[in-house]
């Protein structure tokens, strides 16, 4: 499955990755090889095989609905570059 540099640019945008122009060709080539590997896997006959959503043959454990966390805002906001009045501040994003 050939991938174009535009496809790679779109995926990079969605993942918020920046790919330098000069490496674009190389990344596109490697991207294509990964997809070729997947295409090969897809040729395996999986008729009648239930899709596996998780490799562990187990069920989700549930927790009781109880508040067990207290407010640790000061500590949790320490690594943030910018906070004010309890808010995390980020570059302006608006619709």
């Amino acid at each position: 499955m050939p991938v174009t540099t535009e496809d790679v640019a779109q995926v990079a945008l969605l993942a918020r990755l920046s790919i330098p122009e000069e490496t674009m060709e190389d990344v596109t080539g490697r991207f294509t090889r990964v997809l070729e590997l997947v295409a090969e896997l897809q040729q395996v006959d999986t008729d009648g095989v239930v899709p596996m959503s998780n490799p562990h043959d187990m069920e989700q454990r549930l927790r009781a609905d109880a508040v067990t966390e207290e407010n640790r805002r000061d500590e949790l906001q320490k690594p943030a570059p910018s906070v004010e009045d309890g808010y995390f501040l980020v570059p302006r994003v608006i619709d």
Partner: protein
Amino acid sequence: MSWETVMGLEVHLQLATASKIFSGAANKFGADPNSQACAVDLGMPGMLPVLNEQAVRYAVMFGLGIDARIGKRSIFDRKNYFYPDLPKGYQVSQFFEPIVCEGVFQVPLSDGSLFPIRITRAHLEEDAGKSVHDRFPGQTGVDLNRAGTPLLEIVTEPDFRTAEQAVAYLKALHSLVTYLGISDGNMAEGSMRCDINLSLRPTGSDSYGTRTEIKNVNSFRFVEKAIAAETARQQELLEDGVSIVQETRLYDADRDETRSMRSKEVANDYRYFPEPDLLPIVLTDDYIDSVRQALPELPAAKRERFIAQYQLSDYDAALLVSSPDMAAYFEKAVTLCDEPKAIANWMLGDLSAALNKEGIPVSQSPVEPQNLAGLVARITDGTLSSKLGKQVFEALWQGEGSADQIIEARGLRQVSDTGALEKLVADVMSENQDQVAQYRAADSSKQKKLIGFFVGQIMKASKGQANPQLINKILTEALDSD
């Protein structure tokens, strides 16, 4: 050309759990920014989600409440997109195998008929945080208290044709979830948010036009207005030969129009894949049965019972069962005074008007069921006229005691003593001899007007306490016999 509007709705319902869906942080509205966001909610490295059993139970309760098929093995998936109020860069949702599968929800319309809406699915997911754009110049503030709030997203088939149907569905849904107790359904606080998928097609056509999605409409009235605005916009474009662009739009209530949210379009590829941090939810038949056994009486069943047991009209019954508190109030009052129709009339008339005026729910009504029952009892036994009843109601509202105490304290007892009434009639007639003469000379249509005048004078003289039926009888007899 005439057009038909085709709509499907997606409702995001916040579940009323004590803690978040995947963490033990508190799930309460209105706390200080980020004071209820723990390391899991913030998406700190190494944090793992653990599913809240109550959120699962609530989802199953909803599914059983609309007779939907319950997914006995459902799976969480990652929905990937980039936005600052989504710290992990993905929302944990259910895409491939939801917990609630297809069902049919019977929506009561105002004429008493039922309108079936096909539910496609309802799935569990986590809410995102909130972005604040107008508080910090040039920056966006992020509050992650809401991140991880359990949501049930309820998706319908494109079964709606009118705004009225859409609003009726939302009201019925609101009623159902408050009966189930799984959400407070508060639209103003975002507990119930509605996305509208809307397209037009020429009337009679059975293919679908290109649709737009109006996001996050947060009141019944705005749903109605957003549908009208978007229908008008699409119709104008189509009639000018312009094709509709499939996109996400926002309803702007101030301008009463929808506008495009362009930034959402770039990211419209969510690259779902199974969430490796969570295992499948497996539900046994025993578990599902135990949830079913514990369901309360739901609005549809209660409505049927009210009609049969209390001989109420479809309309009155639908209004009374619309909230569990209303229905409980009604039944409590009826056990104290067996006059269901009169109780219903007072509740849907004066009581509802007073509650709306003060903007308080029936659960906080200063007039309690026993007060209203006491009032209706005194009207039924003839102690009060309906006009005096209104005075007593006002006094009950002001907290002046029980109906009997108010009647006693204010001397509001209706006068039904014939002797006393005859004297009142005679007094008023002798004070208004000109009108008496006019009456006797007049034809029957003029006489009716003059009767009104006399009744008014007599009621005034009796301070509203004369029994109006008796007054009419005594007055007519006195006027007609010279």
